[in-house]
Each structure stands twice: as C-alpha cells, then as structure tokens.
C-alpha cells in the first residue's frame, strides 16, 4: 500500500520533467521582451503579454512557412498511405488467409519472399511502429494478428517515409 504512493510520486515527477520545459517555453512566448532577458527569471506568469507572440505573427514569412508545413504534412500522409496500403495488401500467410483471399495471397507470397528476403528488417519496422500501444488502456493486449497486415504495413511504411525524426 505504501509503495503505491511511491509509484504515483515517481510518475508525477516524470510528468513534471516532461512538462516543465514546455511550460517555460509557453511562458516565454507570452512574455514581453524585457521579461525574456530579465534576471533572475520568474517562474510564475506575472507579466503576461501578447507582445512577443504578436511580433511573431507579424514577421514576414510566418504564414507562408506554416502553409508549407501543412502542405508537406498532407503530401507525406497521402504518399505514405497511397504507396504503403497497396503494397501491404493482402498479407500472405499459408495458415491465416481467408478463402476468398487465398488466391491472391498465395500469389503474393513468393513475390514478397523474393523482394523482401530479410524478414528481420521488416519485423524491425513493424515492432518499431508501436502498433500495440494504441491499445494501451486495455488489459488485453492487441495481438499482432497476421491478417491485420495491411493496416500494420501501411503504418510501418508511413514511418519509413515520414521525414520526421522521432
């Protein structure tokens, strides 16, 4: 019973470690120029101001840059799903293929074997794509069923071609 409080305290401490820098940068964004170069720094939002943030949005090119980011994000999503989903469909599996898919699955199997000789690399990306985490709230873990391949392959591919660095 006592250790439970220890776990909660630790969890809160880690949350603080993650959130504190974000709080500080938000605080800086909503402070005036004098406050940003002040010493010593105040940790409380005492001198909130829209000066810095207003200046930021007035800078030439901010909206253009934002628009560029949105365009890149949308194109990345379209390309990764558009390229990844067909490539991952359907999952070839000698045991788990449903009857109506069996023909195509069986045909795809040797092709995939030929093109992807190293299963280890594929597994690496699949495991790296953190699929089961989406189900974290539930006691029963989401099993990586072989028939769910298209979805997982699409996700894995989205990760390979996405330019962001985790």
């Amino acid at each position, binding site marked *: 019973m006592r*250790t*439970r409080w220890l*776990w*909660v305290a*630790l*969890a809160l401490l*880690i*949350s603080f*470690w*993650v*959130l504190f*820098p*974000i709080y*500080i*940068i938000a605080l*800086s964004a909503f402070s005036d120029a004098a406050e940003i*170069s*002040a*010493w*010593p*720094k105040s*940790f409380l939002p005492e001198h909130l101001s829209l000066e810095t943030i207003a200046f930021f949005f007035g800078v030439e090119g901010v909206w253009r840059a934002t628009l560029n980011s949105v365009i890149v994000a949308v194109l990345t999503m379209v*390309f990764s799903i*558009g*390229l*990844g989903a*067909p*490539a991952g*469909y359907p999952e070839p599996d000698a045991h788990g293929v449903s009857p109506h898919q069996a*023909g*195509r699955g069986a*045909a*795809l199997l040797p*092709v*995939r074997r030929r*093109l992807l000789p190293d299963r*280890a690399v594929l*597994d*690496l990306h699949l*495991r*790296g794509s*953190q*699929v*089961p*985490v989406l*189900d*974290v*709230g539930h*006691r029963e*873990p*989401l*099993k*990586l069923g072989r028939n769910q391949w298209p979805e997982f392959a699409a996700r894995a*591919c989205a990760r390979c*071609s996405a330019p*962001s*660095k*985790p």
Partner: protein
Amino acid sequence: MINERTLPYLLLAPSITFLLVFFAWPLVEAFIVALTDTSGAWSLDNFETMAADIYFRDALVNTLLLVIVVVPLQLAFALAMAVLLRQLDAGRDLYLYVWTIPLGISDLAAGIVWLALLSERGYINTVLAGLGLIEGPELWLSYESPWALFVAVVIAEIWRATAIVLVILVAGMQLIPKEYDEAAEIFGAGRWQRFVKITLPIMKPSIQTALILRTILAFEVFAVVVALGGRDLPVLVSEAYFWQFEYQDSGVASAYAVLILAISMLATFIYLRVLRVREEQVA
C-alpha cells in the same frame, strides 16, 4: 492484364518505384559524389579532406560519446518508466500520453526549449543561483566549457527522445501475460528476480528494436546540438551540414554522409547479431 499472377507486382509497383527514385538513386548518387573529385575522376580526395579537417576528430569522438552516453541512459529510463507504468492502477493512459509529448516536438524546437532553460540568464541558472550554487548569470553553452555543452545536449536528448524507446518497450511489455508474473510470485520470486528472469527475456525483441532505432537516430543527432552549441560541439551530421551549406562542398558532405551510413549499418548489424531474436520470440 490484371490477373492472379500480375496483381502482386502491380500492387507493389508504386512503392518500389518510389523507393528506387527517391531512396536508391540518391543513395547511389551520394556515393558517386563522395568518391569522385572535382574533375569527375574516381578518387578518395573527399575522404582525405574530411579526415584532415580540424573538426573531423572532434565530430567523430563527440558523436560516438553521445551515442555511448545517451542510448544506455534512455534505455534504462524507458525500462524504468515502462515498469512504473505497469505498477500504476489509475491514470495509466494519461501518464503515457504526457510522457510521450516530446515525440510530437520537432528536434530543433526541443533544442530551442532547452536553450531557453540553459542560457546565461535562463531558468536553470535562476534555480542554481537561488540555491547558492552560482553567483550570477553564468555562460554554460560555450566552447570554453565543452563538458557543460555535452551534458546539456545529453539532457536535451534524453528529454526529447526517451519517449520513442518508452513507446516501443511499452508495446513489448503489453504482450507479456500477467500470469507469468503471478506464477513466479507464487513460487517466491522477488520483484527484481521477476524483472530479470521474466520481463527482460520476453522483452528482448522490443529492446532490440528500440536500441537499433534509437542508436541510428543518435548517430544522426543534429538539430539539438546546433541549437545549443552551434559549431562549438561538432558532430558528424552537423559537419556534413556545414560542408554542404557553408562551404558549398557536396563532395566532402557526401563523404560524411557515407561515413554516417557505414557507422549506422555497422551498429545495426552488431545489434542484430548480439541480441539475436529467435523466430518464436517475435511478438
């Protein structure tokens, strides 16, 4: 023309074309640029220029040191966080979401966040001064105190990228049936024993994945270093960047790129061999 035999190739064609044009071709191109001199003849000039540059040694040593220090720390923290998450009764989702927030922050933005904290008149110095450890504003992020710069990058990297390791480990840990733990407990295994004998072995595939991804990305550390130290703490990727965009020398920049690729591949190969995962262990 679309039949059982051609369909797989048609489905795979778009992604293979994409990979060939935007991945394989630039890769070959980079090798060619790195291995030719200005007249277009094959030579190792670029690699010689790279190795003779005054920043090269420091860049190589700093990058390797960063990987050696950051990756094990991140693995240890992420493992501890994943185990802690399992112990909590309430709010598990919320904690996981909060802890993975840095995943959504770009690396340059993370560098700037830590710049605000660690700068001369920043928040960390305010705390240190409040505790009486320093007297006034003190400049840490400078070439005069390379160790402080190094520690700053390590802290920022741990803050920024531990989440990716955590997410992979949490995914792996979810696949461990609770019954294993309970059975071991009944037989009298302690907390530490259960962790070492049950959790760790089952999580080997996840740990391998996390290590490979994280190590490759650690070799590519760039934006955080540049935000915090500019060129005062040279690393391999920042040198590639400076050679490309400051000196306009694609040849040497490509030589750096080839070197980074070689190191990353070697590290991956070692992980795959050392942490060999049997087929039945793959979750």
